[in-house]
């Protein structure tokens, strides 16, 4: 009987073969990262709960392995309140004292930079204090979110306790995406089919020719949104596309993958066992939006034309190079509708600077957009575009829960960057295809 990539990654970490369903007493993790929402309380709890253990052992208080931990302030930066600033300062001081990596405000959204910088690699187990850690699954890493207490425990021991090896659902995706249809449309369509609880406790493993031919940006989007059907995480088997991306990512860091890092790379066996297989015909997917107030409330754009007064192009779901590129293509030489506030936030400093050098930010700015430095922005609902009661927003992010981006009486729709750009021009949910030419 073969193994899934998930089973293989856990097996390597433990040095013995495991199968789905097994409960592992202590699972060592390879990488751990924190944002400034959960980092500060996790540090404080770590210091409070373990100081005496270090003292009694005659050791200095030290995290399990500083080279495996990183801090990424990204949710509301540049800081928007005294408490946020205090938290970032606390993280910075702790990082310095412990000798671990602390990113700067504006370097980007944690899930974008963790992969872009080669911090998380294929075959690794990566955890972070955020549910969208599943984004790293696009690399072929087993990655998922944890809470504050697990973050504090991991700082101390580098282990996750009582971990159930998850079963996997295989999403077999065939057929080419039509012109004007993007991985975001595909995943919203999948959420619509599965529902908010449809993949609970199980890993969403995406396979098939559509995934094989998909570029990394799209794979990140698909893995990112899979937690909206309550998947334990999402994962895509690493291939040449993955390795090209990873090779470029690690160049800035260590230069190349070590033999150990190479050996960790895993793929599912052809006879691996899945709890369910779901066949998806990508060629039948239309540009799709999710209506208020659930990411699983997906409808083809052709059936929706609700008025919109804010458009957000950003977040860890969709604000990478190709996302900004397609938006710029649609916005070029046109003006954002007079009733619409268009907010554009590149997902990382690298994406930002690339888009600036390529004239993409110029095009977007000339259309009348507000461009902000890299961070979560309105997706987190705390700054840079808070919705008023009655506001209607089309966002390229991943959650349209009531109150997610401000007032609980606002309405949030989710869509692709192309839908976002077309919607910004028309002031209502719009199909991007007429703007894309042949």
């Amino acid at each position: 009987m073969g193994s899934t990539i998930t089973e293989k990654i856990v097996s390597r970490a433990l040095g013995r073969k495991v199968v789905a369903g097994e409960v592992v007493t202590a699972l060592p993790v390879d990488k751990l990262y924190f944002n400034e929402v959960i980092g500060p309380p996790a540090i404080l709890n770590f210091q409070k709960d373990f100081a005496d253990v270090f003292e009694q052992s005659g050791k200095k208080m030290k995290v399990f392995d500083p080279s495996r931990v990183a801090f990424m302030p990204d949710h509301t930066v540049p800081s928007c309140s005294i408490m946020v600033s205090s938290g970032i300062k606390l993280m910075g001081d702790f990082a310095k004292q412990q000798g671990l990596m602390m990113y700067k405000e504006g370097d980007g959204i944690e899930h974008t930079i963790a992969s872009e910088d080669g911090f998380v690699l294929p075959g690794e187990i990566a955890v972070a204090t955020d549910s969208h850690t599943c984004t790293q699954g696009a690399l072929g890493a087993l990655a998922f979110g944890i809470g504050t207490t697990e973050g504090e425990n991991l700082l101390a021991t580098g282990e996750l306790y009582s971990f159930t090896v998850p079963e996997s659902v295989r999403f077999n995706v065939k057929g080419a995406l039509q012109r004007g249809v993007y991985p975001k449309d595909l995943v919203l369509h999948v959420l619509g089919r599965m529902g908010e609880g449809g993949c609970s406790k199980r890993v969403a493993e995406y396979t098939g020719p559509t995934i094989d031919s998909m570029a990394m940006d799209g794979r990140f989007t698909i893995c990112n949104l899979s937690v909206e059907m309550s998947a334990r995480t999402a994962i895509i088997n690493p291939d040449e596309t993955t390795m090209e991306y990873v090779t470029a990512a690690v160049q800035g860091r260590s230069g190349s993958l070590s033999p150990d890092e190479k050996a960790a790379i895993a793929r599912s066996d052809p006879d691996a066992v899945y709890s369910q297989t779901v066949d998806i015909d990508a060629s039948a997917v239309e540009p799709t939006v999710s209506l208020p107030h659930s990411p699983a409330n997906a409808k083809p754009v052709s059936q929706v034309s609700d008025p919109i007064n804010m458009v957000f192009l950003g977040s860890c779901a969709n604000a990478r190079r190709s996302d900004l590129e397609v938006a710029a293509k649609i916005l070029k030489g046109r003006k954002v509708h007079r009733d619409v506030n268009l907010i554009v936030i590149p997902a990382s400093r690298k994406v930002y600077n690339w888009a600036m050098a390529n004239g993409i930010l110029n095009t977007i700015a000339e259309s009348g957009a507000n461009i902000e430095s890299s961070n979560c922005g309105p997706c987190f609902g705390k700054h840079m575009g808070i919705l008023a009661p009655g506001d209607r927003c089309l966002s390229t992010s991943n959650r349209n829960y009531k109150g997610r981006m401000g007032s609980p009486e606002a309405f949030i729709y989710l869509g692709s960057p192309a839908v976002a750009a077309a919607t910004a021009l028309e002031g209502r949910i719009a199909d991007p295809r007429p703007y894309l030419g042949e």
Partner: protein
Amino acid sequence: MQVRGKVARKFGDDINTDYIIPAYLLQESWDKQFFADHAFEYYDPTFKSACRASKESVVVAANNFGCGSSREQAVYAIKYNNVVAVVAQSFPDIFYRNCLNNGLLPIQVADTSSIQEGDELLLDLQIRNLRNLSRDIEYPIEASDAAIEQMKRGGFLGYVRERLRQKLMEAPS
């Protein structure tokens, strides 16, 4: 181990952690009680008073309770409003684990439809049984042995401290 409580609130499917505690508050305090004071602020403004009316309250829901964001503050928001247990038909993993880590009992049973607000419940972890005292109905609790163990212990902290102690002893000084 037995726990008794009164059902203070009953929800349907897919209650996400943004509903339990809105994001804009998360960074504004490192004090757990702060989050309890803002529990369900937008989604259910009377949640707090309903839970605080009894010393031991229970929250009941249908499927997928606690989905979405990993914020552990959602657990503090519930627990520190006198809530001893959340009874639901399913929980996503992150929320479930956050509950276990904080001594809020995540109780999974097959069907919560017969439980109503105001019902008195009796939980027995030993025999894995939930009893609705008001209606004389019993529901078997679905949980792994490991989860039951953590529920009894109120979390993992003691265990993690022990692991750390061992690791520090083994490490070269």
